[in-house]
């Protein structure tokens, strides 16, 4: 047997491979729900375990790179794990495991029989693939993987609301994918490479034609749709309240964050040549996203719709950090993402428990029971998650917001600081609305739409357990805010140090071009913008 040489370092692809294998085997076992369930959970746990190992590895050492198929970069596909990618993968694992556990008690058997578990597995594989790949086109492929499985999960067993929500979701996300695809092709046309490190190198060396800015803005809009930034977010509030709660939760936790991840990756590693221009657009978008999202939440009267609009609003915070583009601000974005994924998924899970206990998700109508009086533990879980989301100390959200505000103050961007602060207050307002209406309000037998056909049923133990674990993580992030922040800082430094990434993927000699090619600063452009220099790093 012969073939290209290579090492057996499998670790960087494991978070993708494990759930994918679980999904493939589940398809073979399509007759047995029990096997699918077990495989699914095992896949998620395996993903989490491998992700944690990855995180430990990158914390200890340099950026991990796997050249898939042992083909050298930039020719084959590279899987690249830095701190940011690793922590995102860990979060995907956490939410994945939580979703599987929560689903067991909450998703009906009919839906489960429609291959629910393999779909979830593939969704997780797609999300992790997007976090770990170092290749632009491969990123597109993983986006499609996660998108396709989210389509299927959204429409699974669909009632009318579900399919109507799904068609909006599908249409706008496919538009985004098409834009992404075009942009990828254009990037290859302009730079002759798809490898992110190679793109970064060429942009830094000044090899990029001026029109690449327009391509990067095209990418920005494509990712902006995925991230649900203003004014590209419509698909999110139109669909997230329709599927089963477990599905809502994993979507809320992970999907938009893949868009945020892609934005961060693109505009810290690759397209930094015209940061005054691109990041100014991002800053405006960030402010408007926060404000419009939170106002949307204030206008809603359904549990999950309030939460959905809040996702939009909080995407604004994450983009704010990216747009400010200082090490502290990027650290803020990372902290915010870490906090948000856990809390947001948890809130959707809690919404599921509340819906089960109250018999309705409406905030206008009194439910079957006053949760505050009858379900103090669930209430406490909600308080932790909701006040964390609203940025109240000493919970995780406070520190996330604090770092971003601090970055804003230090960058003297007063408008965004004022917006972020005001939006914080409005977030508090809408969280208390849910609290007051869904938890405090007394049941009123005369009040109409409780779904009487749904038998009141206490939440399964797994459901409560899931929420408790996630709430505990929220509290722990608050208690260990220092270490989490320090990690975010290290991750941010790594993100902003493009050369480290390039060195890891392309090797030391690639950087030599930067020194001969002139300045290494991120504000290079070639004079006439007509031709790109020919010749790659090898």
């Amino acid at each position: 047997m012969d073939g290209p040489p290579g090492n057996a370092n499998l670790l960087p692809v494991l978070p993708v491979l494990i759930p994918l294998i679980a999904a493939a085997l589940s398809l073979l076992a399509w007759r047995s729900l029990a096997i699918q369930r077990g495989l699914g959970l095992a896949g998620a746990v395996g993903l989490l375990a491998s992700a944690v190992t990855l995180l430990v590895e990158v914390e200890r050492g340099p950026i991990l790179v796997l050249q898939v198929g042992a083909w050298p970069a930039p020719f084959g596909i590279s899987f690249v794990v830095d701190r940011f990618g690793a922590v995102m993968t860990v979060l995907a694992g956490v939410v994945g495991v939580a979703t599987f556990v929560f689903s067991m008690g909450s998703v009906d058997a009919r839906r489960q029989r429609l291959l629910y578990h393999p779909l979830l597995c593939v969704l997780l594989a797609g999300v992790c693939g997007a976090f770990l790949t170092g290749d632009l086109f491969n990123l597109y492929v993983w986006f499609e993987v996660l998108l396709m499985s989210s389509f299927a999960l959204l429409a699974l067993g669909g009632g009318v609301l579900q399919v109507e929500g799904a068609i909006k979701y599908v249409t706008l996300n496919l538009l985004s994918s098409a834009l992404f695809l075009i942009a990828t092709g254009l990037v290859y046309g302009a730079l002759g490479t798809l490898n992110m490190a190679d793109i970064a190198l060429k942009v830094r060396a000044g090899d990029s034609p001026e029109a690449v800015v327009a391509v990067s803005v095209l990418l920005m809009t494509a990712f902006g749709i995925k991230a649900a930034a203003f004014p590209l977010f419509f698909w999110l509030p139109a669909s997230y309240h329709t599927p089963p709660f477990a599905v809502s939760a994993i979507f809320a936790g992970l999907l938009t964050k893949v868009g945020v991840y892609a934005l961060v990756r693109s505009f810290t590693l690759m397209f930094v040549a015209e940061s005054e221009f691109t990041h100014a657009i991002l800053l405006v978008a960030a402010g408007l996203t926060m404000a419009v999202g939170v106002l949307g939440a204030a206008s809603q009267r359904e549990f999950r719709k309030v939460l959905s609009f809040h996702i939009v609003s909080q995407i604004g915070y994450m983009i704010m950090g990216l747009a400010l583009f200082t090490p502290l601000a990027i650290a803020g974005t990372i902290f915010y993402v870490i906090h948000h994924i856990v809390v947001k998924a948890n809130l959707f899970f809690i919404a599921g428990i509340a819906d089960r206990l109250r018999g309705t998700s409406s905030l206008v109508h009194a439910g079957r029971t006053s949760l505050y009086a009858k379900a103090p533990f669930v209430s406490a879980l909600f308080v932790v998650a909701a006040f964390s989301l609203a940025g109240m100390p000493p919970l995780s959200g406070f520190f996330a917001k604090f770092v971003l505000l601090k970055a804003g103050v230090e960058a003297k961007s007063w408008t965004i600081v004022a917006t972020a602060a005001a939006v914080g207050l409005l977030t508090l307002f809408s969280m208390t609305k849910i609290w007051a209406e869904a938890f405090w309000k007394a049941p009123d037998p005369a009040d109409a739409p409780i779904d009487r056909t749904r038998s009141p049923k206490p939440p399964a133990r797994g459901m409560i357990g899931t929420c408790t674990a996630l709430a505990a993580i929220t509290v722990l992030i608050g208690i260990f805010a220092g270490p989490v922040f320090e990690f975010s800082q290290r991750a941010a430094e790594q993100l902003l140090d493009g050369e480290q990434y390039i060195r890891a993927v392309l090797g030391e000699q690639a950087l030599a071009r930067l020194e001969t090619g002139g300045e290494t600063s991120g504000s290079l452009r070639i004079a006439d913008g007509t031709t790109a220099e020919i010749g790659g790093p090898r």
Partner: protein
Amino acid sequence: MNALFAIVAGVLFACGTYLLMRRSIMRLVMGLVLIGHSANIAIFTATGLKRTGPAIVPIGEETLPATAADPLPQALVLTAIVISFGVIAFAVVLVSRVWATAGTDDSNRFREDDDMEAVS
């Protein structure tokens, strides 16, 4: 010829997006197909069209002649075609499900916001 196919890509994109903005969900899904075509032509054109033979190494040679087409955009487009096929197949079926459950093909009649706070 770059210009020709850049325009073709543009026309496809324009037609596709126009269909995407139709309220009739059946036309909408056709718009997705056209946008997919547009993306493929855009990739193909932007990376440089070459009137040459396929990217196949002739028998007896070890390497691809320099005149052959760039194989990478082809591989990308091929992947994209297949992916968009899967996605379109799903979307078409979804449209039929929407029609079957909602009873309308007019996307403006889908409800979404009936739970909103009334303006007081």
